[in-house]
């Protein structure tokens, strides 16, 4: 269980999982998966499995936290106990508190909060199976959940990590690349405007490598953004089909 990793890039120049340096893992996105939530998204990304539920806009309790001019956004990012190598205790850990905070700040930026005075929009994101890059995947899922709930947004947030592995800047780090590589740099942006809503880094990168990473992440984010659009279109066409069916039934 503790095998020695000698190299993360193979002799043929590809990564351990056979991907090219700038290649994404397979990603799937599905909205409206939950019955009770106002909006939801189930997203798989490599072996990551993430579920996001959106509740709201709804009344905020306790009321003294409410803001008279806008809604607040509350985000809870959690790891399921069995989503990681060593079982995690059910109580949230510091990492989960930190990520909840920065995901919340990121999401805050795109919602037209002033449309819902005194309200709250609550996002609950749980990583059911973790495989590196969960925070970027979480933001990507959250945007879809918000759209599914019909929350008006000025743009879509899309995330993708880049990082440094065996001296090379690569896109979309896997779990092992994240842990054994030289650096991890999660990025999220509104693709259409290029505005960075999340940017972190752990590791050891030169300023030039950071610059290269930012450029690569933008390209990757563009690809993922197209998948988000498709997932939403799929939903709307499904709704249309359903309403067609309803029409037929009514006839």
């Amino acid at each position, binding site marked *: 269980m503790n095998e020695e990793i000698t190299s993360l890039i193979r002799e043929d120049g590809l990564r351990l999982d056979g991907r090219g340096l700038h290649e994404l893992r397979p990603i799937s996105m599905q909205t409206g998966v939950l019955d009770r939530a106002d909006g939801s998204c189930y997203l798989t990304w490599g072996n990551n499995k993430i579920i996001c539920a959106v509740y709201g806009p709804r009344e905020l309790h306790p009321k003294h936290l409410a803001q008279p001019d806008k809604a607040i956004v509350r985000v809870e990012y959690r790891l399921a106990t*069995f989503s990681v190598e060593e079982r995690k205790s059910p109580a949230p850990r510091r990492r989960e508190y930190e990520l909840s905070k920065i995901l919340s700040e990121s999401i805050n930026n795109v919602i037209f909060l002033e449309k819902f005075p005194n309200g709250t929009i609550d996002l*609950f994101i749980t990583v059911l199976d973790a495989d590196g890059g969960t925070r970027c995947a979480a933001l990507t899922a959250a945007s879809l959940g918000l759209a599914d709930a019909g929350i008006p947004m000025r743009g879509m947030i899309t995330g993708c990590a880049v990082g440094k592995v065996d001296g090379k800047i690569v896109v979309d780090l896997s779990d092992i690349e994240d842990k054994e590589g030289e650096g991890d740099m999660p990025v999220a942006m509104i693709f259409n405007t290029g505005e960075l809503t999340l940017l972190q880094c752990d590791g050891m990168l030169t300023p030039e490598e950071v610059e290269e990473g930012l450029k690569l992440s933008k390209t990757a984010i563009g690809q993922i953004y197209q998948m988000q659009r498709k997932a939403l279109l799929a939903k709307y066409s499904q709704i249309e089909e359903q309403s067609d069916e309803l029409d037929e039934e009514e006839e």
Partner: protein
Amino acid sequence: MRSEEIISSLERKYLTDLLTKGERMDNRDFWEGRPIQIIPNVIKKAEGSAMVKWGDTVVLAGVKVQLGSPFPDTPNDGVITVNLELSPISSPSYESGPPGPVAVEMARIVDRGIRESKIIPMNDPKLCVIPGKTVWILFVDVYILDDGGNLIDASALAAMAALANTRIPKVSIDEEIEEATLLDETEPLPRKGCVASLTYAKINDIIVYDPNLIEDRGKIARFSVAITDGGLICSMQKGESGVFLEEEILNILENASSQVKELIKIIEETSQVTELGQMFQFDF
């Protein structure tokens, strides 16, 4: 279905009027359950797992195993512990935070069903790595993802199905320094048979099996019974402030003893499916 947890008086009237006529909102018979789907092995990082869709209810159970110390009074037995979270994902009524009394009761009902049925033989030598010192600890964690009613039976089923596909690492022991090293190879968790839970709701004076969300809210009492594949009752739990008469309980037990067979069959069939790849993408 998005509404408050407390049933409205209109909803209640509709519910009970129908029941009085012998009908249920979703057209089931009083003793009829909802459709069930199980996707086993859904979580790669877990040693065992199962996603269960039971009517509109969605529950995910995962099993993690870990080496640890045995309890002092059972020094050669493995340890099992069941946790359950009413995730705020699953309903507008649930909040984050440590489990409240409702989640604790559910976790303990699921736990008792597994424990008392002895379907996982905790004294199996495979679960005891170094006698008196190191045993396998099994953590069964159940997350409610969508609350469509009858969470107890769905949770028990998910936990059971997750255990049914759990694999534990083989271990090599250095006898001299009493240290265990995990190997890459795994073997199935020892298991003897199967157990399932069946829950009945009493609404006014009518009793129905497998309450949906509205029936769950409208019930005055609940009765859950866990039965093994051998037909033995290994756990019962009456809940809520309504009462049951002895006769009602006996009727329930008779019905449960016959219905349990179908549930056991579903679990055992699922436990044959071990490939993760085939259900990588699933539909809720």
